[in-house]
């Protein structure tokens, strides 16, 4: 009787030990980037496709160099948005690089453009500025840097598709007022400094109406020459 009880106890102990060992190897979060960036998903979507909040941008498919620059700028506080500054404050460079690569490599479909809330005239003005610029006012066309298909260029120039007008307009406003800055020469600040509020509204509205191109990938580095120097895009 006693011997049997002791034997059962031994079995139980062995089982418990076995369970413990199994728990140590399997009871862990998935060893993936997707699991590590879950903190990003309430605002940017599970694959970086964006969410219903028009002020939170799509991240998916943007060039990794651009995304990495933004992560660095949020971490240092150069780009100001307290919830982002807080999340990134104590994360090392290689990890931010891995996050940038992760979202750059995600390709959820671009959303259907929402119907625009502005008049046809305003949209036409936006299209003119985006595709031809205004040489008289020193405003280059968006397409001269962001690419003929507006899909951006590796490694540092972002595509402008899949963003909502509210986000684009808020960012252009931040560039204009100097709240958003980038490495010198700060090309976007130079460009935005020449825009009026009406220009911002028009460009943002027109960009938000663009349909998805057949190939939404950023073009390779050096595909075209930039009209002027840009600190975020090494030559």
């Amino acid at each position, binding site marked *: 009787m006693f011997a049997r009880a002791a034997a059962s106890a031994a079995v139980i102990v062995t089982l418990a030990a076995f369970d413990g060992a199994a728990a140590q190897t399997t009871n862990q*979060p998935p060893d993936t980037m997707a699991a*590590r960036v879950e*903190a990003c998903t309430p605002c940017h979507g599970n694959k970086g496709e964006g969410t219903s909040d028009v002020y939170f941008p799509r991240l998916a498919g943007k060039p990794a160099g651009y995304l990495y620059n933004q992560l660095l700028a949020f971490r240092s*506080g150069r780009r100001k948005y307290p919830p982002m500054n807080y999340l990134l404050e*104590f994360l090392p460079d290689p990890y931010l690089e891995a996050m940038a690569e992760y979202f750059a490599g995600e390709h959820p479909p671009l959303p259907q453009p929402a119907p625009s809330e502005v008049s046809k005239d305003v949209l036409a003005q936006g299209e003119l500025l985006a595709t031809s610029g205004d040489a008289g006012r020193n405003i280059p066309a968006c397409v001269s840097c962001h690419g003929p298909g507006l899909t951006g260029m590796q490694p540092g120039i972002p595509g402008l598709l899949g963003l909502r007008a509210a986000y684009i307009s808020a960012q252009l406003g931040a560039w204009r007022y100097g709240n958003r800055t980038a490495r010198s020469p700060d090309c976007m600040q130079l460009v935005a400094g020449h825009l009026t509020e009406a220009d911002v509204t028009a460009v943002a509205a027109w960009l938000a109406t663009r349909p998805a191109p057949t190939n939404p990938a950023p073009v390779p580095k050096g595909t075209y020459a930039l009209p002027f120097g840009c600190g975020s895009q090494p030559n």
Partner: protein
Amino acid sequence: MGSRLSITLLALAALTTLAQGQDKSQEKSSDIIARGEYLARAGDCTACHTAPEGHLFAGGRAMPTPFGTLYTSNITPDPETGIGKWSADDFYKTMHSGRFPDGGLIYPAMPFASYTKVTRADSDAIFAYLRSIPPVNQRNRPHDLRFPYDNRQLILGWRTLFFREGEFKPDPTKSAEWNRGAYLVEGLGHCSMCHSPINALGGTSQSDAFKGGLIPMQNWYAPSLTSNREAGLGDWSIKDITDLLQTGVSARGVVYGPMAEVVHNSLQYLSDEDTRAMAVYLKSIAEPSPPPPPSSALPTTESSLLISLGKTVYDKNCASCHGTQGEGKPPHWPPLANNQSIEMESAVNPIRMVLNGGYPPGTKGNPMPYGMPPFAGLLSDNEVAAVVSYIRTAWGNRGTPVSAREANELRSAPLN
């Protein structure tokens, strides 16, 4: 009896001095600089003396305080704007007495009440290291303090009330390891700067040391290191404590907020031996018998409704990582059941974690930490209060419910 004790202590002090003297003469200057760099990490000098995107130790970082904004000073060896003209004596005097070389009083935002415990040899090593870094010519920015706090003479009053000058005295009844841990925690680590209640005069009384407190301006609660109901480590294993200090994550919990900064800048660089010594000391100062939990301020019907809503919110948003029984997947997805930081009297930290989410620091031991999503945009004040009330009371947790108002107030807490 008293005189015999004094003589013994004197003899001990003489021996210690002798030992330090020998160490010093044998130590090469490159070794002293390396040791100084290590000690500067232990003191987390960079947290204040390096500005974001600024040069190492060139100062200029804004330090908001309840009395106005202080700007940290340039401690690079630049002769004009830094400490290039200082001697090792000047540096020791600053660390030890909280006075500039000219005798001027230093604002106690500089933790000289802790650094006074640092030995002369360690102070000299840190100074040697600071002399070895590149000088940066960057003038100190004047402080921006409100009247009457812009009058430095007020510091005299603060010093009388809260400052006890004097190097760390080892406790001969304790092990060398314990004493090393105590020296690091009470001295360079300056843990009491946050983990003690701050009174209206901006000071901590000796008897309240390590008893926890809300950090002014940051609105994070720095839990008590002596109460096992807060961050007291009495029933933690040494391994869990060293894991937490060195990597930022452990089987018992994870660091966020200001403590993530401390692990990121400072603790991850400490040797295994020093980390263990701190763990041994921290474990020993926890009180064995915690005070009884406070009763809830919320009426019972309201709290039971909250808690039942809280379970719904939890099962939908939290259980996928933290488990249906709050067991988590430690160390990366921390357990919430039997987690002191969830249960303690102040609910500030759990509410903030739900609102703001957060990443533990990226460290050598945990370079790619898992993050908690922010729920501020997804949950209402009532839902935040409900889910925090639920995790504070479920699975045997002995916390108390919180109100939607408490949740709402923390939506505007500063994030950096």
